[in-house]
């Protein structure tokens, strides 16, 4: 053809066009992860906080931070050419059926490569089964029911402890206190009626009978009741040495208020977290529960020994306006662990990520949690996620057990 200016211009434009597409193809696609939490309904505040935690984790993964956490020092996922992680949020509203529907939507339409969530153990059941059906991993960030890893699912993973481990921690604490001479003989269980409360109380009943404690009241109540006076009157009549509630935030607030109204002051309260690690509860009824003990996965006072805890808390606080708590710390850490596995898998294929998760072995010092390490057993559970017991003293949660993590002695009874 003639070498006219027109032809040269057309030809170079065509070459540039092909070059441009090739350059775009070389840039890595982002990696989508589905995030399911309750963003509306009675636990909406938990969802709001979980979103802040997830965004903080995303910041650590996608940008360079000088922290000793997986993926902190790199920008994006190095194993996938620096691809950034993108979070797709879905609201399950605390309803297991909606959770299932949203999980399906995230997988089939948003094309996520993994799911994480969900706060409610009841929703985790359906979401984990959905993930299993489609062959991609579900990372349980903050569900604590011990039935979850026993569903026989290959794609279920949980980095944090479950209620049997937490309850064992509580009873280890009672045994330790008994050895020091404190009288602890009778227990009162107070639990809500979904899988969380039921499994929690079952674990506590099991340990109580194994270790010689008498359960004088076992009250299963309906969550979100307008009135708990009948239940609290029964607790008051039983007058156990320790009250052990397994409640979400709304019921926890009503429980404490009703106890104050009916003049019931238990000697000690040892809670299965959930509502009792939510700042909203302490804002509402904090003064009435000074000395309350709750199990936890996380203690902020670890920041004194491990600088990354303080740094990550600062990043979270800048977004959320409050400190990391038991729930938000687990949500944040689980997302980082999941992203780390995707990075090691060097692929967004569900089976490849699953294999990478199975091979996970992160020492506890490279996390912000007081865990020994992160290693998933055959059922997908991290058996080395050591729980701690925290006591609410002078408006702060202080680690009191186990002795190697404790920074203060327990105050017992709570009113002392």
């Amino acid at each position, binding site marked *: 053809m003639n070498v006219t200016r027109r032809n040269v211009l057309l030809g170079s434009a065509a070459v540039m066009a092909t070059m441009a597409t090739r350059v775009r193809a070389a840039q890595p696609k982002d990696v989508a992860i589905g995030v399911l939490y309750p963003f*509306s*309904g*009675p636990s*909406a*505040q938990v*969802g*709001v906080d979980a979103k802040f935690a997830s965004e903080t984790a995303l910041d650590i993964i996608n940008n360079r931070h000088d922290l000793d956490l997986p993926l902190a020092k790199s920008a994006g996922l190095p194993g996938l050419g620096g691809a950034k992680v993108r979070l797709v949020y879905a609201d399950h509203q605390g309803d297991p059926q909606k959770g299932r529907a949203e999980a399906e939507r995230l997988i089939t339409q948003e094309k996520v490569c993994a799911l994480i969530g969900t706060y409610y153990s009841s929703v985790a059941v359906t979401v984990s089964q959905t993930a299993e059906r489609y062959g991609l991993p579900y990372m349980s960030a903050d569900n604590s029911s011990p039935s979850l890893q026993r569903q026989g699912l290959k794609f279920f993973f949980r980095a944090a402890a479950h209620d049997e481990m937490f309850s064992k921690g509580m009873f280890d604490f009672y045994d330790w206190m008994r050895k020091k001479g404190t009288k602890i003989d009778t227990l009162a269980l107070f639990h*809500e*009626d979904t899988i969380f409360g039921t499994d929690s109380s079952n674990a506590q009943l099991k340990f109580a009978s194994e270790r010689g404690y008498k359960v004088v009241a076992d*009250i*299963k*109540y*309906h969550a*979100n*009741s*307008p*009135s708990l*006076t*009948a*239940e609290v*009157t*029964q607790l*008051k*009549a039983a007058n156990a040495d320790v009250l052990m509630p397994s409640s979400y*935030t*709304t019921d926890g*607030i*009503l429980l404490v*208020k009703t106890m*104050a*109204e*009916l*003049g019931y002051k238990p000697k000690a309260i040892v809670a299965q977290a959930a509502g009792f690690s939510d700042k*909203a*509860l302490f*804002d*509402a*009824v904090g003064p009435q529960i000074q000395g309350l003990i709750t199990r936890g996965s996380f203690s902020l006072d670890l920041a004194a020994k491990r600088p990354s805890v303080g740094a990550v808390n600062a990043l979270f606080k800048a977004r959320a306006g409050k400190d990391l708590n038991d729930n938000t710390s687990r949500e944040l850490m689980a997302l980082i662990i999941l992203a780390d596995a995707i990075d090691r898998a060097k692929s967004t294929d569900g089976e490849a990520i699953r294999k990478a998760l199975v091979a996970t072995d992160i020492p506890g010092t490279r996390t912000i949690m007081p865990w020994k390490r992160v290693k998933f057993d055959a059922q997908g559970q991290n058996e080395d996620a050591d729980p701690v017991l925290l006591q609410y003293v002078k408006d702060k949660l202080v680690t009191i057990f186990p002795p190697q993590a404790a920074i203060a002695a327990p105050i017992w009874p709570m009113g002392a």
Partner: protein
Amino acid sequence: MLTASSIAQIMVSGLLTGLIYALVAVGLSLIFGLMNVVNFAHGEFLMLAMYATFGLALGLALDPLVAVPIVMAALFVFGAAVYLGIVSYAMRARVNSGMVQIFSTFGLAILLRGLAQYFLTPNYRSIAHSWLGSRTFALGPIYVPAPQLVGALISIAAFFALWLLITRTDFGKAIEATREDADAVALVGISKNRVFALGWGLGAMLVGLAGAILASFYYIYPNVGGPFALIAYVTVALGGFGSVFGALAAGVIVGLVEALTAVILPSDLKEVGVYAVYLAVVLFRPRGLFGSI
């Protein structure tokens, strides 16, 4: 097992709770009795009243008791506005008018909940210091919390005032007349539209009173209306749609049955007692205990 004084405590608490349930329910009963429209946003009216009380306590340091008349007036206006702005149009539907009415208030409920969550955040609020707030009277072995006691007394007073309004005033007679035959009242000079609007205002005002009382001892969040509304529907159906005394009686029955069932059965089944009573009444007397429809 439970002692006699524990059972007495449960019954007293159930009675006080029941009187407050009655107050929440009577507005619903009134509106349905007047115009055959079920207000599915009733729980959200309660929620708005609670937030309004909280706002007044926070912003103007008004004790909830003092805020009661203000909140009642505000809810009266709001209720009338909801009728004039939404329900009156819904009632004009020619096709499927029943469904249109249901969906209009149901949609309003969802909208209000969403707006509350968006603007006020889903965080739980409580009124930290109120005059009644943490006082409890001890009558022997029975603890009677002051807010619930005062709430129950106010509820009884409100029912009495409502009875006086309906039986002794012209407006009350207009309501009864409109309820009997809404289209004929124009013949005697009563504006149906005006009565409906005022009826909605009155119903909303009553649930506003309940909300202001509840706010002094209950936590407040966008979905707080849900459980109370559910109990209100059962109470209204049990007492009879449109019957004021029925709402009072049914509210007390629901409160007592709920409390006692929690003792006899595992307390997560305490609603079962309430629904069992409701089923029994509906089977033998479909219009409710005191219903006239």
